[in-house]
């Protein structure tokens, strides 16, 4: 109380008032100057990151320590999924402040590349990454896979009652029992775009209509969908592997299966489970492209893939040899054309709005 009184008295007194505003300016100046090349020799890089803070922070700290490059990281909220930072990248696109974009999924990144937000960057560290996880134009590189799964409580659901394919969710017997995250955000958004690219628009429209008829509930994110499962608000939920692993680690008795992408009529161009990687890209016209490039080299390295695998998220490496070394299984793997799916994101959003949410 006394300090506030002093503050107000200070604000009401001539020289002191000037001193306060001068001090405020000095704080700005001092804080701001730490890390800018204009006043400091230390190189720096700015990263916009939608990977979970607890996983990303140690990795970025290790890069700082090794390279001597100061990393300024801005993280997104879980509620907004990558939305907040994508908004920010778009708002800043005339004069970007970020050097590197590190996303927990790949589809939004490809869309950013298609909109000209990401620049070409050819990394030597990407040499052993399979071509399906790299942009042919080198605007993005993907590492660290997470699977799209259906999580369920084995105490409530019998094994034979589970959907084996994503298209099975259209069956009326699942009415009122299924939840997923809002399909306009994050990995669920990409998941729907992949289904659209494999199944075609007519089947996808029917699928959304069936989900709607089955009273499919939308949760605020994959983690929230799993929480709703543990609360008994759903019998099973579509989510990512890391959310299930996290729930299992805290003692929730839930299991997961890897449903097949096969189309409703069984005439799919592809079948198998969907695996979605994290992705990295250099921001077009970024202030520090050299430092940004070095950070990208590190983030896509086998070392970071190992760290991601060792983390609570347990991302599976995209490098086959590393998977062998780590004995990391990739159940029911299939190859997916992420770029083709990303091109259908807007159409998928429209179908979600018109068919599922309307």
């Amino acid at each position: 109380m006394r300090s506030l009184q002093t503050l107000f008295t200070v604000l009401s007194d001539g020289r002191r008032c000037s001193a306060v505003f001068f001090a405020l300016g000095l704080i700005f100046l001092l804080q701001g100057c730490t890390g800018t090349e204009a006043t400091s020799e230390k190189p720096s890089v700015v990263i916009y990151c939608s990977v979970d803070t607890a996983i990303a922070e140690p990795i970025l700290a290790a890069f700082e320590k090794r390279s001597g490059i100061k990393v300024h990281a801005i993280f997104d909220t879980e509620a907004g999924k990558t939305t907040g930072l994508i908004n920010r990248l778009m708002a800043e696109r005339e004069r970007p402040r970020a050097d590197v974009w590190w996303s927990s999924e790949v589809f939004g990144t490809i869309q950013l590349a298609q909109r000209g937000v990401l620049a070409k960057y050819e990394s030597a560290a990407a040499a052993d990454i399979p071509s399906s996880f790299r942009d042919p134009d080198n605007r993005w590189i993907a590492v660290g896979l997470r699977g799209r799964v259906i999580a369920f409580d084995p105490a409530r659901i019998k094994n034979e009652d589970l959907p084996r394919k994503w298209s099975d969710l259209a069956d009326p017997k699942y009415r009122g029992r299924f939840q997923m995250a809002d399909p306009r955000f994050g990995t669920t958004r990409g998941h729907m775009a992949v289904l659209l690219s494999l199944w075609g628009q007519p089947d996808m429209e029917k699928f959304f209509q069936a989900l709607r008829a089955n009273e499919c509930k939308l949760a605020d994110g994959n983690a929230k969908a799993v929480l709703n499962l543990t609360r008994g608000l759903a019998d099973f939920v579509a989510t990512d592997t890391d959310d299930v692993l996290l729930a299992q680690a805290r003692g929730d008795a839930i299991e997961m299966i890897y449903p097949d992408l096969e189309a409703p009529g069984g005439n799919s161009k592809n079948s198998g489970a969907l695996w979605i990687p994290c992705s990295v890209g250099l921001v077009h016209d970024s202030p520090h492209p050299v430092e940004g490039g070095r950070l990208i080299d590190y983030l896509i390295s086998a070392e970071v893939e190992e760290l991601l695998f060792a983390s609570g998220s347990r991302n599976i490496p995209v490098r086959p040899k590393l998977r062998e070394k780590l004995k990391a299984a990739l159940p029911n793997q299939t190859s997916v054309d992420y770029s083709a799916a990303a091109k259908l994101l807007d159409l998928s959003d429209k179908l979600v709005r018109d068919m599922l949410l309307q």
Partner: protein
Amino acid sequence: MKRIIAFQFARVAGWLVLAMSVGLVLVATVIEAAPGPLPDQSVWPTPRLWGYFRTTIAMASTATVLALFIAIPFTAVMAGIRHGRHRRVLTALIIMPLVTMPSIHAYAWMLLATRKDGMAAAILGAIGWNAPGAQWMQAAVVLASWLWPIPALILSAAFRHMGRQGYQLARLDAACLSAFLRGALPLMRAPLIAAVAATFILAATDATIPPLMGATEIWSVEMLAVAAAASSHTRPIGYVFWQAWPMLALIITLALAAIPGIRKIASWGDELEAADTGTLTAAPGRAWYSACVLAGVIAFFPLCVFLTEFGSAREETGRALMTAMTTYRTHGLATLLVAALTGVLALAASLGVIADSDDRPWTRAFGKLAFAAVLITAILPPEIIGTALAATLTRICDPRSWNIYDCTPWAWMSALLSRFGVICLVVARLTNRRVPVSLLNHAQLEGATVPARIALVRLPFIWRPIAMAALLTACLAMSEIGASVLTQPVRFFGGCLAVQVDMQMHYGRQSETTVLAAIMFTPAVVAALVGAAWPRPRTQA
């Protein structure tokens, strides 16, 4: 003389602060929204959006009714308190939930709802708390537990000036609560409407509690998707604005309905204050103790949940605390500094809107204009505020050299000021109207100039409420998420802690998150302690 010059200097600084924060947001919004909706944008919301609108109204209405239900008994107890210190202790306990980060309330309820065994699980199971489809009701309950201090504080203040006589008459043949409801409440209709409007507006626009409680079919949550879609349009702010207009229209209508109540509050004199809270030192009764216990239980409920989560796992809690401190220390310090500076800027900005009746016309006009601008930005969705600041400052500032956008938290503080600065400015204008006219006339007769009258007569009267409002602003600023994520400086030493905490909360039960949530509870405790120690407002010069 020095104080007069200082006041003039601070006043100009306040105007500059407002122009560079609120003014920037408003100009960018007007430029993008004025041309109308985008070519491919329908102004009329889809049936789905109308559905969300209805759910939001149902949720906010339920939260408002529940908040009133909790607030009225406390107001009745406050009415009977004669001793200033007892009143301050109860007021501090009442304020606590409001200055606690809203996500913390929701997280505590989420932890309770996901417990597998124990008494809480049994009770929640028995009342069907986890029943499918009831999420908006749960959100309403949590919103009420966060917002009930608003009607409690407004009504208890109104009672002292408007309802006491009716209450005392009704008390002759009725019990305390009954006398309050029948005798006092009808006399306080205008402040009651203001309280209802304020609670409803905050409940309808909050985007942190509903998603954590699982209620996604809510207007404010849908605005996240709108903001996502907006980023690909040429006028993103205009796009969000023309999608958000029904809620904005409702909020403006409610704000207009609240104005008579606010005017009433502003016109209260100080003559009754001394009689109510002055020298009487009646011993506190059972009602006061009961109210304190109940308010304490509500206020400390989240902390109690977190402490029971830690349980006996001392080692794990210690490890979680270390991890949280290591990972989030810089974010915490940065957030604390930014919130404190936002409070200081709100103080400075409030000096910009304090006017005297004999002030120059342009000065008064500027004060009114600034006040109106702050009122408008306070009701804008945080996505609009953040995008407006990021897009505008990006164009001005060169990222390759030192600049105010990347290297200082100016944009972040501007966003916070645009959202919460209204509290300080409203308090400044209201208390400014309560300065005794006789004193001002006396000063005028002695030849005091306008700046001298404000600096030497008005400020000593009003600095305490403004400083308290600044503290409240700082507390709220610590928990802002929507605009902070868009405006955190890239070259500052830390980011927004609330964003980090919110991100982790969605993953459910984690030791580090629980520790962080408990740490985020501290500002509310500090605010309550300051509130409890706060002296009685001066009623005489």
